[in-house]
Each structure stands twice: as C-alpha cells, then as structure tokens.
C-alpha cells in the first residue's frame, strides 16, 4: 500500500513551492486584479527555465519524462501560489491531447516549444454553457473551422488553441488552430479572476489540423485527467486560504483573546480542514488512476472534482467570513482565492456536470429531453 508521494516527489514539491513562492506572490495577484497584465510571463519563464513546463513530456520531445503524479504536485503548488499561468489548459490538457491523439509530426513540432515556454496552447472546449463533447456547435468543413468558443482561458495570450468542433460527420473531435492564422478573432472577456484572463474566440473559416486520435471518448478522457489535476490546484488554493485564515485567527484579537480560540472560529476552520483532506483523498486516487491508466478514472475524476469544488467554495467563502470586516475588502487576500476557485469551476464545469458524469458511470445516464 503506497498512497502517498515518494521522496523524489517531495523534493519536487519543495523546489516548486520555493520557486513559486518567490515569483508568484499574492501582491502580484493583487496588481493583476487592479489592471496589470493577467499573464505572469515572468513566472512562466522561470518554470520554463527550470524545465517544469516539460515535466510530463518525454525526454525525446524535449521534456523531463515524468508523469501524472508530478503534474499533480505542480498543479497543487500553482494553486497554492495563485500563479497567473496557463498551466491547466496548456500542460494538463493540450499536452496529453497531443500525446494521446496527435500525430508524430504534431508532437514533434509542438511539444519542444511547449517545454521551452514558447508555444502556449489554449484549450477551447466550452461554448458558454456545457462542455465538449456534449455541447459542441463549432464545425469543421474541409479543414476550416467556424464557430465561437468561450470562455477560453489565456485565449488572448496563447499561440495555438486546441478546439472541440464537429467533423463533417457531426462527430466531436479536437483540432489544432494557429491563433495567429487567418479567420481568428479574439475578444477579451471579463472573468471573475483577472489572474486567469479569458477570451472569446471567433473562428471564421480558420485553417485547422485534426488530432486524428481524438473522438468523443478521447475528449472525455482528457477532461477526466484535467479534472484530477485541477482538483490538486483547487486543493492547493483551498489549503492556502485555510492557512492564511488560521494565521489570521491566531493573530486577530477580540474580547481579549485570539479569535481562533473561539469555537465558532475554531470549528469552522476544522470543517475547512476536513473538507480539504476529504478532497485530497479523492484526488490521490484520481492521480493514481490517471498515472496507472486504471479503468476507474472517470469515476475517480468525478468524485475528486465534486469534493474539490465543495472544499474550495466552503474554504474560500468562510475564509472571507472569518476575516470579518477586512475579509470583504478589495485590498485583503481572501477574495483572491474565492475568485480563483470560481475560475477553476468555470474552466471545467460545475458540479451539475460532474455529478452527471459520475452517475452516468454508476447508474444510468439521465434521459435526454423528449
């Protein structure tokens, strides 16, 4: 039985935590909220220089050849630092998509650039509400894509996008679009978390390339993997929100005592802790299922996401509450975590979507409307 991390993995975490702690500060997140560039290119460069962007890319393709567990560690530390980088779409979705469904040519031409931080691939699965492959109206005809995708996180900052669209038979597939190419119009959206810029991308007969191995099942697998890795990002941010609230409760005095000594505060913090640890247990199983190719991945991904969504929302809302007056001011830190939590909900879908994915496996899928 080994349901934890190895010493090497612990070392990776420490290195990442230090590096991200130095570069992706909460102060820089505040600056972005107040209008600074939403993409933290400096931290992205540091990650590239450290070889972290190629963590799960094979050595032959310019990466470090590690796996899902290491990606999960990186995700958790990104969450903890609130780093404003396109980690989830570029590394947890685009890279695995290329690896599992792309051609050798596609991999060779893109993966080394991703590892170096030069190529950034956004993931354009959503069209307002719902997620691909269940909700896709963008279409590809003769290698030309038309349709609108939104929200696309880091859509304006990316060089490429991985787009879900139906092929000429009407089957949802994944296509690679060069965002500097013709027929591409990108407009900024107003995300709740400005450290996670989001865009609407209109494609009008834009030239695209099919990822030949992509079919609806592959898109679902991709989402399952992303949900597991996002759960680690969610746990990282929830844990940081808990930590800073615990610190505050230890320092802030009222009625002559640190407020953390009052059961109303202490027990709320304990509930946050319990929800986070419950989510972590599910995320661990998800990481194992992802790394080992276990057939229970869809179920593991759904329970990891459901408990992570719950832990994040509870921890971030109550973090604001327990900070009292200061908690709902713009200048304080707690709302940074609340915003990132919602952003992560937006990017991969709400609990309503993942409950159906879970029950679709355990019970019968919900009948379509007649």
């Amino acid at each position, binding site marked *: 039985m080994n349901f934890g991390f190895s010493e090497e993995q612990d070392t990776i975490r420490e290195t990442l935590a230090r590096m991200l702690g130095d570069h992706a500060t909460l102060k820089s997140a505040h600056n972005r909220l107040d209008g600074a560039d939403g993409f933290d290119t400096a931290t992205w460069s540091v990650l590239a220089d450290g070889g972290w962007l190629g963590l799960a890319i094979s050595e032959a393709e310019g990466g470090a050849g590690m796996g899902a567990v290491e990606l999960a560690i990186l995700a958790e530390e990104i969450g903890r630092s609130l780093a404003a980088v396109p980690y989830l779409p570029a590394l947890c979705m685009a890279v695995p998509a290329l690896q599992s469904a792309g051609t050798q040519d596609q991999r060779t031409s893109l993966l080394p650039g991703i590892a170096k931080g030069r190529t950034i691939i956004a993931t354009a699965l*959503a069209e*307002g*509400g*719902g*997620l691909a492959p*269940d*909700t896709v109206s963008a279409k590809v005809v003769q290698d030309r894509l038309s349709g609108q995708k*939104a*929200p696309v996180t880091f859509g304006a900052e990316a060089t490429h996008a991985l787009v879900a669209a139906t092929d000429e038979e009407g089957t949802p597939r994944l296509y690679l679009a060069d965002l500097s190419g013709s027929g591409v119009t990108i407009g900024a*959206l*107003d*995300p*709740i*978390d400005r450290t996670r810029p*989001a865009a*609407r991308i209109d494609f009008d007969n834009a030239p695209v390339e099919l990822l030949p191995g992509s079919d609806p099942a592959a898109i679902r697998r991709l989402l399952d993997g992303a949900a597991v890795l996002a759960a680690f990002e969610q746990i990282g941010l929830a844990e940081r929100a808990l930590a800073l609230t615990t610190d505050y409760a230890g320092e802030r*005095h*009222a*009625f*002559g*005592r640190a407020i953390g000594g*009052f059961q*109303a*505060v202490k027990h709320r913090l304990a509930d946050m802790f319990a929800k986070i640890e419950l989510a972590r247990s599910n995320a661990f199983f998800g990481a194992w299922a992802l790394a080992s190719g276990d057939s229970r991945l869809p179920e593991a991904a759904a329970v990891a996401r459901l408990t992570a969504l719950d832990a994040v*929302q509870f921890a971030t*809302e109550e973090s*604001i*509450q327990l900070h*009292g*007056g*200061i*908690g*709902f*001011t*713009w*200048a304080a830190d707690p*709302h940074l975590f*609340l*915003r990132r939590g*919602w*952003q992560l*909900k*937006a*990017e*991969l*879908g*709400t*609990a*309503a*979507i993942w409950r*159906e994915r879970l029950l679709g496996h355990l019970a019968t899928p*919900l009948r*379509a*409307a007649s």
Partner: protein
Amino acid sequence: MDFSDSPEEATFRSDARSWLDANATLRDGSEKAQDHFMARDADEVARARDWQARKAEAGWAGLTWPRAFGGRDATPIEQVIWNQEEGRYAVPPNAFLIGIGLVGPTVMMHGTEAQKAAVLPRALTGEDIWCQLFSEPAAGSDLAGIRTRARRDGDDWVISGQKVWTSGAHYSSHGILLARTDPQVPKHKGLTMFLVDMSDPAIETRPIRQISGGASFNEVFIDDLRVPDSARLGGESEGWKVALTTLMNERFSISVGRASGGARAEELIALATRVERNGRPAIEDGEVRSRIADFVARQRGLEFTSYRVMTSLSRGEAPGEESSIGKLLLGKLRQEMGAFGMELAGTAAGISVKAGDDTARWRNEYLTAPGNRIAGGSDEIQRTIIGERILGLPPDIRVDKSAPFSEL
C-alpha cells in the same frame, strides 16, 4: 390576523400619500438601482438635502422625534408606513438616516442644551449630514476594544486614531466619535463620546473598496484633531453608555427601515427557464427546482418575519425575538442565491460570455453578500446574541472585562 391598517394607521398613510403625491413623482421602474441611504455623488447629496429640507418644512422629517425637537411624535409603525409610502416615489437616497435615527436620539438623551440646539435642527433639515465613527481596525465585533485616543490638553481634547467601516464619511459634515480617554481602566470604562466636524483638516477620509468593486464604506484617519470640551457628548468615561444608546437606536432604525435589496428568488426561476443544464432547460432539473424552492421558502419566511416585527411595532411593543433572525439568515441566503445564479450560467460560471447575460447580476449579488454576513454584527455575533439574550445560555467566558485596557 389581519394585514390591513388600523383606522389610525390608515389616516396616517393617507396623509403621507397626499403630501407625497403633491411633492414627488411615483417610481415608474426606469430609475437606476440605488442604495436606500447612500448617496453616490455630490449631485445626489444635493438633491437628498433639498428633499430632506422640504420634508422637514412640512413636518415629515424626524417622524419619531418629539414635537419639541421638530419631530412628529410618530409611532414606530407610522415610521414603517412612511417608509413604505416614500419608497413608492422616485426620491433621493436618505443620507440622513444616521443623523436622524442614531445621532439625534443620542444627543436628546445625553447632550447638553447647547448641543441639542446645535445638532438637532440642522440634522432634521439635512443641513448637516452625520456619520458614525465607532468601528476601528482592531475593534469590530469587539467594539469596546477601540484604540483611538483622546487626551486632555487644557480645555481641549486632542484626538488621534483610525476609524473604519464609516458609511458616508466622505460626504458627511459631522461625526459622532467614540474614543478612549482612560486606558488604565477596564475596556468598557475608559471611553468618551465626542461630536466632531468632518471638515477639520485633521480628519482624512479614504473610501474602502469592497470585493464587489463598490465602496460604501470609508476609513477615517484622525491625526491630532483638537476639539473643545463642549464637543464631549455625555460624561467623561461614560462613552460606552452613550454608545449603547446609539446602537440601540441603530437596531431600531434597521427594524423599521426599508427591507434590504438584493435579488428575488423568483428571478432564478426566470433565469433557469432561459438556460440549459445537462442538455435540457435548467428549470426541468430536479436539483434546480429543489434549490429554487428552498430559496423561495426562506425568502418568504424573512419577508413574513418583517410582518411580525411590524405587528409588534403596530401594537406599540418592542420588536420581539423574531427580529433577531433576519440579520442572521439574510446574508447566507443571498450568498447561496448568488452562487447558484452564477452556477446556472453553466460552464462559464462567473464569466460573462455574452453581453447582457445574467452573470454580472449574480456575480455582484454573490460578491456583495459576504458584507451582509459581516457588517452590522457578523453571523457569529448574531448567534451569540440569540443564544445568550433570547435562549438565556451562559455567556462566553470573558477574559477582558475587568483588566485595565492597557494590559490587554
């Protein structure tokens, strides 16, 4: 049980309506959403002052004040009826709530004749706008923990410190300020209340931006503000007693005030009818229906609770135990409704994807609600109040009640 006015109430309502009809125009729904008592800009302040002056002239300002001070000696339920009726008209925000509702009664009870003469008439007509300088960074739930110091200097007092969460400080002409004058006695005992002029250059006001983006509150920095001893309201070291009068009147103002804004649960039905969930109209989803039904039931409960409060007022009684639950339950309900509204928008929860969609509305609701759970006594403080004052449970252990403030 009967929802109609008593004959006296009906007469009052009809008088109010006649005057309002002659002096204001009914809302037609085209008005911008506005806060009920916060003015947003100088123009709104000017219009509010003008409206207040007209009400004062006609005897509709300071309704519950005694006639001796220019009031109408109205009953609490008459105040409620006035608020209901005035709420139907397109009138400026009531920036005078603190002056008339809180400061006036406090000055009547604790002020000198000179203070009454200086404060009351100008508060009534709106010439002066008052704010309440109580809370501090280190004194929120624990109000008696304030650190702003007032030191004797000859016949004057010199005040320095920082206040926070001061509504309307940026357009207020005056403030009622609680300061510590004796740190060598227990915390509740060394406080004194002052009336201060907000235009004094020793006072600096900075708006506080909230997570919703709005700024209804201010920080107020006081740096060696010099006031004469005649600015002291009530006895030296009697400040806590004076503050309790203010706070009691604040609670009363809230209980007769207009119901808080915020979204109606029914709006979620409209939203759920427009959007899809899992490939079907969201309103057909059992969980959506369940959540909305729960919101409707809770919101109705809060609305009917306010009827119970009004019943007590109408009978000339103090609002009963039921009045304490509204504050506790409202914030969480709004927060849950806001979150649910955002989620109904689907994958794009929290991101406005299409111009004119409902995301911004529910996002604003969601980001405003945390303030409801904190400001004016947090959920946690409300639970303690219910537990101790209504249920009679033993008080929390207090380690700070008898030690000198300087040793805490």
